[in-house]
């Protein structure tokens, strides 16, 4: 280091600034076009059923926010979705695609039901213990996939997915078997396939505000969103996770063992889904009882939320509220005569639509870089 070169002087280039503006404008119009396209297709489908999209939109808005007590309901639904999405974000950042949240969520709910109905102790302790055990159960379930991935090279995409189908059966078994979780109250006529309800003191506290009520799950989820954003973006641990996701070979060379870090990422990813399940149950999901259909697609939808937010934890917050409002709004659709599955279509189309602009931009940048490299050579 005998001679330090001064960095080349940055010459402000009016053409560059111009180009940047143009690309921002292009991106914006791409987003508008693709989202508009998704909404247009949805509107066409609505028109096919003979209803009008204005009516459908109005019903959705009423069901999600405007009708009395509805936005509390929306926040209640948004909490587990956001938690699932946060777990997904951690996995994706580490380059791992855990898509078994629906099953991990059920495992978390089952752990919560076990602690709440089978153990004795002060309510607060049971509640916190149930949430913690829910995280461990969900995380452990996802870690099975990590073991398969890092010991035998089984892709986690497939193993996590197959574990969902097994989780459904485990829950079905648990709530129909007396010595596991089935409701033993002989006075209940339909005790066939549910667990006993969580006792009152193991419920999540409920916030009452402006005529709306929601359990504090959403507050926990919001805090955790901030925490995950901080951990991933600002700490060494987060850097290692992201390094692993970007380039496992470089990660390995700098001392980040893919198997250890990856197992952690998958465990956490599942733990968030498990927490979501526990929060759903303790927050009053299916009247505090574990049932076979308990998860009601929250796991899948939380996964879509993460995709929609393009793996940014803070962006996941509005996206979770958006998806939750589509879901709660859907229960008001019956009056319009449009099947509520339209909401699933809107969700799928939106995710697909939002995949397009960044991909187009990426290709353009590659092309520009390649042609620039070609000119120099």
């Amino acid at each position, binding site marked *: 280091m005998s001679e330090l070169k001064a960095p080349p002087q940055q010459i402000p280039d009016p053409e560059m600034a111009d180009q940047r503006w143009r690309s921002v404008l292009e991106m914006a119009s791409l987003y508008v076009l693709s989202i508009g396209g998704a909404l247009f297709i949805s509107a066409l489908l609505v028109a096919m059923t003979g209803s009008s999209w204005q009516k459908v939109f109005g019903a959705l808005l009423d069901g999600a926010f405007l009708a009395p007590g509805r936005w509390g309901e929306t926040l209640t639904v948004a909490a587990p979705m956001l938690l699932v999405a946060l777990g997904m974000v951690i996995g994706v950042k580490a380059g791992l695609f855990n898509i078994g949240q629906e099953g991990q969520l059920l495992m978390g709910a089952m752990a919560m039901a076990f602690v709440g109905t089978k153990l004795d102790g002060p309510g607060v302790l049971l509640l916190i213990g149930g949430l913690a055990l829910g995280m461990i159960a969900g995380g452990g379930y996802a870690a099975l996939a990590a073991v398969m991935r890092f010991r035998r090279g089984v892709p986690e995409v497939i193993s996590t997915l197959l574990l969902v*189908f097994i989780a459904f059966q485990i829950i*079905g078994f648990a709530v129909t078997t007396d010595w596991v979780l089935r409701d033993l109250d002989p006075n209940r006529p339909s005790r066939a396939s549910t667990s006993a309800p969580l006792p009152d003191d193991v419920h999540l506290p409920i916030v009452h505000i402006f005529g709306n009520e929601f359990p504090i799950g959403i507050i926990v989820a919001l805090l955790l969103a901030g925490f995950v954003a901080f951990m991933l973006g600002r700490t060494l641990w987060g850097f290692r996770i992201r390094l692993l996701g970007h380039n496992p070979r470089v990660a390995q060379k700098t001392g980040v063992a893919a198997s250890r870090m990856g197992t952690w990422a998958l465990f956490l990813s599942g733990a968030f889904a498990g927490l979501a399940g526990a929060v759903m149950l303790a927050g009053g999901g299916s009247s505090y009882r574990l049932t076979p259909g308990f998860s009601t697609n929250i796991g899948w939808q939380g996964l879509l939320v993460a995709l929609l937010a393009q793996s940014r934890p803070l962006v996941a917050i509005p996206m979770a509220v958006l998806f939750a409002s589509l879901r709660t709004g859907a229960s008001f659709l019956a009056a319009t005569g449009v099947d509520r599955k339209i909401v699933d279509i809107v969700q799928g189309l939106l995710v697909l639509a939002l995949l397009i602009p960044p991909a187009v931009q990426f290709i353009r940048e590659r092309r520009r870089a390649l042609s620039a490299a070609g000119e120099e050579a």
Partner: protein
Amino acid sequence: MGDFFSAVADIFSSPTIYGSAVRLGGFIAFAALGELVAEKAGTINISVEGSLLAGAFTGAIGYDLTRSVPLGLVAGIFGGLLVALIQANMSHRLTADQFVVGLTANVLVLGLAGFLNANLDPVVRRASVLEIPVLSDIPLIGPALFGQTWPTYLLYPLVPLTWWLLYKTRWGLEVRAVGENPQASDVSGIDVNKRRRQAIYYGGILAGLGGAFLVLGQIGSFDTAAVGGRGFIAIAAVYFGGWTLFGTVLGALVFGLADAFRLAVPVLGYHLNAQMLAALPYVLTLVVMYAITKQFRQPAALSRPFIRGLR
């Protein structure tokens, strides 16, 4: 436990289970053959589930409109292909992540099929059984393989056809090349992403046909839960078979057998735990994948996108 083993012995000695294993496994085999080609080219195509469901639905619609099973099957092919077009172009023309695209496509198809089914409500009937004269008289496997509804027999020529395509044509060689070493393929003038897209189209066509077969050749009605995750079992069958054609078909049949076993248990009057039986094919899949995946070499570039100039 003794009950379990006597049930196993009893069920596997009755000929009916093999017939239903071929039906259930055949459905998986359609999808698995296509998935094998897609994976040989380097894509883990999880939208095969969506292709199956789309094929099942458009097959049902096609039959409802034309009252003809062959046209229903053709409509199924188009449904499956449509999903493959989305998957292939989003992931190998644009550069969106293949799993994200596949998963979203699955969700979208599930929503669309449910929505349209509620509005259109197609009426479907099962195709007729065609017993192939001499062959169906072979004991045990004869009726199972040659006493099925006629769309089942479409599967049999597809096996050698896929083998011929993959191993005896230039196209197949290029497909395998882009799955093993996309950079080298690119340098030698193969359009990597084009071959990958085409491989996915082939998978979509077969899965669409499989979906239509499910509705028209097996169940005789349409339901959005009809496919129920068996597209993922098809992916597992490819792993089971170690990316060989024979192994893939065998894998599909093994999973079909597990499924058939589950259905046969209550029919023969045994009481085994229903949840355990329902989980059996999935547990089996996971165990097999754990035991087998390392024994075989997967296509080297499996699930890695190819972008020129980036490794």
